[in-house]
């Protein structure tokens, strides 16, 4: 097989993965809609019903609630979710295949420019999401994860695409394999953590009775549990991010002669590290548990996205490997 063949097979696999991710995303979305519909029919607690009724937001809701106790529904089937998850796994296999083929076409790891980094990082985000299911059922994040992966792949292939090129001398180091891969793993965990934090914020809002349109969240873990899950995922991400900083410093010492030079990318990596260190401390700080720490996790993840997009594309510095 020639390089050109590998490149085109890789792209076919990536486009197929995108198509299947789209189907998975639709099914996850349908599942969320169904959860919402079920909760309209089955209020979880009388307390919630009373609160909703007394708040007087829309007569339809109140009417439904009054009828509700007549329809007991213990364990609703999650058919759409099961289909969506199977599709996600299928799409992921295609996605990994496409990424690996790209690596073979390159003759080096498929994360040396922004296009390849989009492929690899989204593959790892979805891969971690699939693996996490063996530990906890977090499938309710499926729409968020597949949507996010789809977005990364779409922007990557349309906006960041570059041809197969040899590695410039600066990247010819095994630290490229370690440093960037660990950074991607950390990013994946921060992405899942951010999804959980969003769910936590919405759940807390529903639990406080402020929003009636969030009732679909009754089928999700409560805000406290979501907060704990987010914390544990981000905690592991933080450890990986620490390794990223250290591996990067060792590489910088080897390539540039100085382990830390406040290059723009280093600055943002430092900012992200500090933000997540703040998040971890926030859990032990009075007045910062709950929504505030969740917002901090989201600010941290926004900084990760900023570091990947804006800093790569528009900031001057030594990490100019976008290939664009």
């Amino acid at each position, binding site marked *: 097989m020639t*390089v050109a063949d590998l490149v085109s097979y890789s792209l076919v696999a990536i486009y197929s993965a995108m198509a299947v991710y789209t189907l998975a995303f639709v099914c996850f979305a349908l599942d969320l809609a169904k959860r919402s519909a079920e909760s309209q029919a089955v209020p979880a607690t009388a307390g919630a019903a009373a609160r909703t009724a007394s708040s007087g937001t829309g007569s339809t809701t109140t009417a439904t609630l009054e009828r509700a106790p007549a329809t007991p529904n213990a364990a609703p089937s999650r058919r759409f979710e099961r289909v969506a998850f199977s599709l996600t796994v299928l799409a992921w296999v295609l996605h990994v295949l496409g990424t690996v083929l790209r690596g073979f076409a390159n003759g080096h790891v498929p994360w040396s420019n922004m296009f390849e980094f989009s492929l690899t990082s989204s593959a790892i985000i979805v891969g971690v999401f699939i693996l996490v299911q063996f530990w906890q059922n977090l499938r309710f994040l499926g729409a968020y994860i597949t949507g996010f992966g789809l977005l990364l792949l779409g922007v990557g292939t349309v906006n960041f695409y570059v*041809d*197969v*090129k*040899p*590695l*410039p*001398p*600066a990247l*010819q*180091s095994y*630290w490229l394999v370690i440093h960037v891969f660990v950074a991607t793993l950390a990013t994946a965990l921060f992405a899942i953590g951010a999804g959980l934090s969003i769910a936590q914020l919405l759940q807390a809002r529903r639990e406080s009775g402020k929003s009636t349109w969030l009732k679909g969240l009754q089928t999700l873990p409560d805000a406290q549990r979501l907060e*704990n899950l987010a*914390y*544990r995922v981000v*905690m592991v991400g*933080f*450890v990986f991010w*620490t*390794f990223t900083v*250290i591996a990067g*410093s060792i590489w910088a*010492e*080897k*390539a*540039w*002669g*100085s*382990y830390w*030079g*406040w*290059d*723009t990318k280093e*600055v*943002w990596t*430092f*900012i992200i590290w*500090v*933000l997540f*260190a*703040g998040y*971890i*401390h*926030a*859990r*032990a*700080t*009075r*007045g*910062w548990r709950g929504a505030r720490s969740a917002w*901090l996790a989201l600010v941290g993840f926004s900084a990760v996205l900023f570091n990947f997009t804006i*800093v790569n594309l528009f*900031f*001057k*510095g*030594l990490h100019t490997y976008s290939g664009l």
Partner: protein
Amino acid sequence: MPPRRDDGVTQPTLGLVGYLRFFWRQLTNMRTALFLLLLLAIAAVPGSLVPQRSSDPNGVVQYLRDNPGLAPVLDAMQFFDVYTSVWFSSIYLLLFISLIGCVVPRTLHHLRALRAKPPKTPARLERLAGFISQPAPAGTDAAGAVEAARQVLRGAGYRVQLFDGPSLSVSAERGYARETGNLVFHTALIGVLIAVGIGGGFGYAGQKVVVEGQTFVNVLGSYDSFNPGRFFTDAALAPYRLVLKKFTAVYEEKNLDAYGQAIDYRADVTAYRPQQRAQADAIKVNEPLSISGTNVYLLGNGYAPRITVRDGHGNVAFTDSVPFLPQDTNLTSIGVIKVPDALPKQIGMIGFFYPTAKELNTGAFTSIHPDLRAPVLSLRVYTGDLGLGNGEPKSVYELNTDGLTEVAGAGTDTPALKLKPGQTVSLPGGIGTVTFENMDPAAADETRSVSRFASLDIHPDPSQQWVFVFVVLAVIGLLAGLFIPRRRVWVKAVETDGVISIEYAGLARGEDPGLEAAVADIARRHIKRLTS
């Protein structure tokens, strides 16, 4: 509580000590620490928005030139030196003082806790995490059950203590390494800061451009630029010299999408150390040369055309290899030649070098490949006083043309001089000639007709081993502090009406998602031991 004045409540006046104590309490408060941490993240942002003197000094010069209104204001606020600025430093120093104020009492407390026995078993275990109550297996007495529990807990790494009271019980605690890890992590961060702050002062950062065939001697005067640390002395410079034998750049030939992209740079050098034989070695981008305890890094390269100028009297007024600074990936390069010794008038030239020249429709040249395939040197020539006599330091890469007369170039009747390697042309007005020397005149092609230069960076930092040691400690501490659960577990044998039931419960000290499972596991193993 912050001290208030005009709220109608009489408060005792705080003396100086009172205020200091109040300030100390505020500073070592967790919320203040968190606030300082987040402030540090925000304060780091400006350093990525505007160029920094430490990492991009030329960028700062350019920025000052491009933004004459804003830049002086930013400069006054130290925005070009963010990471050494007063405000950034005060944030991290306050943060670290706050950290010390937290770590010291916690360390003392932890040292006491390490020697202490687990606390007395609570009277009622039902409200605690993972509570289990089950009847003791037949034939078990309370003392035997508690002793078996003690052994199970000890085996699981718990520190144990037996208690009497209304019922016999064992109180156990584990995971002291969590707090140890926590303290090690934070102390190691202080260590990193001190190592960076003090140790960095013993190092230096020097740059030197070396042309093929030239020698670099490691003494202060031979560096092109040199930034010593605060505690630097000349003795820190190891005596050695390096000769750049050859610089090789390899460019992509097969892949047309990346045609001409650099794929390898290699500087072949010979190193001479005192009392040792000369040693051939190579420096590559990710492979610095280690010599006499310091590393020499290859950070840049380019062409250094060798130029000879004869003045109007026919004397050689200048002959040297002049490093030209690359402007793009095809190595279009700019360099400056100053000939103060030319008679009757001093000569200055601004040169453009194109390794593979192509003439555009406008008549201007551009380079279409970084290798030497059709090298062309174009020179704009000036005469007049170069201003070198007044002792002011001048950049060798810049020519101030104010006060000079242009004699060849776009602004004159004579077009810029164009030379290929080996060619000599006359300067206008009979002021002399200029020769672009061919470094390899015998060769059939021009691939080695112009010398290359390597830009070498040398910045030893004796503190970095210490930084590394503290970072490794910090990581070990972080892992222990985040992942080792600290928990207390109690097992109690409760006797009611001659029937013994055994109660189990736990208490998390910090994050401990696995506590209930751990208590259940202890209970299972305890019963197994009692029944076997």
